[in-house]
């Protein structure tokens, strides 16, 4: 019967989505850090970041669709859209719903970056740091059953990778070589305080 196939596919797609999402986050940070070697140009980091992000959405869709159509869970489409509306693992599923909707917003705004402008896009992109933890917690919460050992290994791997990247990013200062000089000059010619 296909029901169990759906059930396993949901879990498989969920796990894969988490790995992909973590890779996307790491790549995004690497691009901010301007990582580059001979044979690994900077546009490769950015291109991979974009491609994997789109791929993540595909597998997340698979994850959600299979979960919803699986008769055993009786989730219903509402649970996939409205956070905390499912009777089944209400809280942990809700986190997943939120994470998905955040990621959707992040990807869509990135696709129309030119129209909404760099500042707005950048602001929205910070939501990643909210979406990723939600996704991880969703995995931990819904995955805590017989096979959690596998999931934990996987999640531990993702969490370590992402935290390492985040830590390195915030330990090291801005990569814009002009940042310091610019802010000091602007400080000198800033007359915004009421005259």
């Amino acid at each position, binding site marked *: *019967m296909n029901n*169990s196939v759906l059930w396993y596919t949901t879990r*498989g797609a969920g*796990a894969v989505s988490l790995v992909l999402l973590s890779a996307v986050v790491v790549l995004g940070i690497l691009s901010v850090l301007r990582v580059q070697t001979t044979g690994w*140009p900077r546009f490769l980091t950015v291109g991979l970041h974009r491609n994997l992000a789109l*791929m993540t959405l595909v597998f997340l869709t698979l994850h959600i669709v299979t979960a919803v159509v699986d008769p*055993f869970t009786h989730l219903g489409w509402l649970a996939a859209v409205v956070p905390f509306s499912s009777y*089944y693992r209400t809280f942990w599923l809700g986190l997943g719903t939120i994470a998905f909707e955040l990621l959707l917003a992040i990807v869509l705004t990135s696709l129309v970056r030119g129209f909404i402008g760099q500042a707005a896009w950048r602001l929205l992109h910070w939501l990643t740091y909210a979406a990723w933890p939600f996704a991880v917690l969703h995995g931990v919460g819904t995955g805590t059953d017989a096979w959690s*050992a596998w999931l934990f290994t996987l999640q531990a791997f993702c969490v370590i990778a992402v935290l390492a990247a985040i830590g390195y990013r915030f330990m090291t200062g801005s990569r814009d070589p002009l940042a310091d000089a610019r802010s000091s000059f602007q400080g000198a010619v800033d007359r915004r305080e009421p005259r």
Partner: protein
Amino acid sequence: MEPKDTPHARVRARDAGMRLLTRLTTGAAVSAVIGVGLFGAVSAYTIPGTATTSTITSSSSSTSTSAGLQSSTTPVTSSSSSGVAVSGGSR
């Protein structure tokens, strides 16, 4: 400018980078699809009462999507009920 930095060399580096991007992307896509099957099988295997043999063959023969999904259909009868148990028990 160093001799390595000639426009021609940079064009070649660009093309190489583009090819690498395509390869890495397709590679990621393929392994992601396999991963769905693999993790699905793993979850099937780790659910109590599932036939061990079926998933061993699955994980070993999981070179393509179909292989990954095929395998997880094998333990259906035994595990679909346990699937209910899982969702029910975890409510």
